[in-house]
């Protein structure tokens, strides 16, 4: 399987993401942002970082990069699973490929910590994750507070689009387990085959790095996980 990893100017988790994909036995293809075609790519990751220095607004400039035209087309034809991590999530929201937006953390500060989060609903195509599973993954962001239009949250829940919520170790979701002010502790959402999350699974690939739950998550996204 060929997993494309888009590199925008200012992406900085691209290497970590490529290494994580390769560690799972897949072929990772770096894709520079000027590409206009995704031919031959089976799955696509938008990695974390500070594309275009986060100038204007996180993800706003990268959302207009040439390659995003091709991403949009592939998504509309429902043929390409897309995963946006951190800045990649912000870019997907800015492009309108995922609902909602990421606002600055309620503390007003960047935050890098380990967090627990529970799988609220399993997005399409994931294998090996089930509702109620708890993952431990790191977050590292300044604009990670997921926000939606008034009234939109309920429909996202009803459509099973809210897939990941910050929780405690046992999977219980409450105000004390919200690291950034996200509405309803939302850490990740999905829409069809497009998935976005703020935490960094590519940094949690081994227990000596703090957790191997990222490996489990990425395996599931690749459709390779087991129960």
């Amino acid at each position, binding site marked *: 399987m060929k997993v494309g990893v888009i590199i925008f*100017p*200012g992406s900085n988790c691209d290497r970590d993401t490529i*290494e994580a994909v390769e560690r799972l036995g897949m072929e990772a293809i770096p894709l520079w942002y000027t590409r206009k075609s995704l031919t031959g790519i089976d799955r696509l990751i938008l990695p974390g*970082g500070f594309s275009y*220095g986060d100038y204007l607004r996180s993800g706003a400039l990268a959302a207009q990069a040439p390659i995003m035209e091709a991403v949009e087309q592939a998504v509309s034809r429902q043929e390409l699973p897309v995963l946006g991590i951190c800045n990649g999530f912000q870019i997907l929201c800015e492009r309108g490929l995922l609902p909602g937006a990421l606002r600055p953390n309620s503390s007003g*500060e*960047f935050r*890098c910590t380990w967090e627990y989060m529970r799988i609220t609903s399993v997005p399409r195509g994931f294998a090996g994750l089930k509702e109620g599973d708890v993952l431990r993954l790191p977050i590292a962001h300044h604009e990670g507070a997921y926000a939606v239009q008034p009234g939109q949250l309920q429909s996202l829940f009803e459509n099973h689009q809210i897939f990941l919520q910050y929780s405690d170790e046992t999977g219980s979701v409450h105000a004390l387990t919200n690291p950034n002010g996200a509405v309803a502790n939302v850490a990740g959402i999905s829409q069809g085959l497009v998935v976005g999350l703020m935490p*960094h699974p590519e940094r949690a690939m081994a227990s000596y790095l703090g957790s191997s739950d990222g490996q489990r998550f990425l395996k599931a996204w690749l459709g390779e996980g087991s129960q």
Partner: protein
Amino acid sequence: MNFRDVGLTQEEFEIIQSQLGRNPNDLELGLFGVLWSEHCSYKSSKSLLSWLPHEGRAVVQGPGENAGVVALNDRLHVAFKVESHNHPSYVEPVQGAATGVGGILRDIIAMGARPVALADSLRFGTDNSAAIIQNGVVEGIGRYGNAIGIPTVTGEVAYSSVYDKNPLVNVMAVGLLPLDRGVNAQGARPGSYLVLLGQPTGRDGIHGASLLASQDFGDATEHMRPTVQVGDPFMGKMLMEATLAAIATHKLDAVQDLGAAGLTSSVAELCYRSGVGATIRLEEVPCREQGMTPYEIMLSETQERMLLVVSPDNWPGIEPIVQHWEVPYSVIGEIMDEPHLVITMRGDIHAMVPPEILAGSCPSRPARSEWANEIRQNVPHLTSFRPLTFDPEQALAVLGSVDCRSRHRIFERYDSMILANTVWGPLHDLAILRTKGSKEGLAIALSGPGRYAARDPYSGGLAAVSRVVGLLAAQGADVLGLTDGINAGNPDKERVFRELTGLIAGVADACNIFAVPVTGGNVSLHNETEGDSIWPTVVIGAVGRHHHPLEPVPDSPWQEGMDIVRIYPGGDWSLGASVFELLFSQLSAYPRPDLERIRRVYQALDEAWNKIPSYGVRMIGAGGLFVAATKALLAMPASLGMEISVSPDDAVRQLFSEVSGQFLIFCDPQATPRLMELLGPGIAGEIIGSVTPDSNLVIRAGRAHRFERTKLDRTFRFGYGG
């Protein structure tokens, strides 16, 4: 323009006149002003720094280049250095600190290394504005490091009113390079192009090095704001990728970053080290503003710029790389045989100076080795402060004091995990990183308590080296090299120069005893405002080879029944310069570390990994045994606690003494006798307690004092009474 306008002395001006054989013009005077400034020339510290040992088995590149380089193994080298950005961080905290990070990263990149880690050592005051300065500095470090994508993996912070108007921001960067990737500033060959990469040059930071960082603060400081540069980590990232990709072609003659004194320092240093001259055409320098004068272009300290030297034959292979990364660039001149730096603009010659005079002839202040000897022999009187009774409230006050409590409010604002190498991050006393593709990892420590140098700088110098070497020894890691960040007041004052002499003599003596080299560093003087100077403060960064980075020696116990052993290198218990003393008495001299004994402790710890099946170790530092034990307890599973006994008649000193060379060891009772054997004669190892199934801390000093885990946790995280 007068020589005083550019910060030169009469004597220096006369040397320039006689070496040039004429009067310098205004531009030339400006060039001398910046290059002969304290910040660029190290004129007051150079002779003192010559006391430091630079040789070591692992040393590939010692001082004199952009950064030191040591060998991790037969495939990887490590480039690393500490640098300060003190003055700019007081004038404009966010940008001052951010550009400090950018600057030290470029030093590492200019050696051909890809940065893998940052570490920060911060000193702030205690007045009302200190919190604002701290918030800005932390924001600035995070903003640059997080965006360029280099993790800040360890660091330290301390507070005193002496830093009210002179906060210290020392940042260390560490990078890795494959064995054959090395590049430096010595290879420029005649005929090669000088290619300037990066941010277009603007009017920012003119005289940042010569006037801002090389003079004391006074009334005029407010006008210095324009001398602070502005950082752009996005451009920094693109410049880093372009430079590293260009170096990887092996087709560059030399690389030099542009930092303090901008183009002036960069070109002069490069030519001087390579033994060549250069012509620079200023009309080719991309500028942000119209009508910039030669003086402004040469002295601008615009950030995110790099100078590549590449032969005309090789340039066609390099240009597309730079274009790919969308970094502005321009060929601004050529290297030539004749040893002259010629600066032209549209055909007119504006300056012509031999690089040797510019970069190599600044007179330096002679070291006073007789002072160092006096200082060594003149051991200060130790405090007789010896409180009789142990008060649990005092213990909590120490734990929750600014110098001891958790730094999470700072380090959570830094990305400490990007690049996915961080096995131990800022929750621990040192950082441990894996290296991809090698068994050996990196152990990185940065420390330098100013309190210990406040009354006896020599003792503080010894202690700073002793601490980082000990942190690495506890992991069984080999110290590959050290980098020194020296910060002090105005060296023209005899008192300050004496302090500096003691401090550096201490560092040098400790390096010699531990047989560890210093491969480069930074000196920041004139940390003085309206006549008040900071404590002489040395920050030592250490880089070590960790033999089992995926499996660090734990720094807390993990099961019930484990012995808690205290190692004490001998000598008198003393509270000198401890946090306890600071809070409840008056700061006195720090007891001089007994380095010969401490070296034996380190040797024992170094051997322990191979000889003792499983154990944990934690160095006792600020706050003494009480704080070290509490930190270990808070890192243990919540179901476990500790019980520790100290002698009732000397409980306070035993619990709060910060004498160098103390450790807590946690080990299985069956292994304790072997540990004691390893320590050898003369080193006190004493079982002082054990791990209990009760989740709290019990201190027995005659009677038992019980500290609830939740209370300890709250005090450590939020401060005493918090």
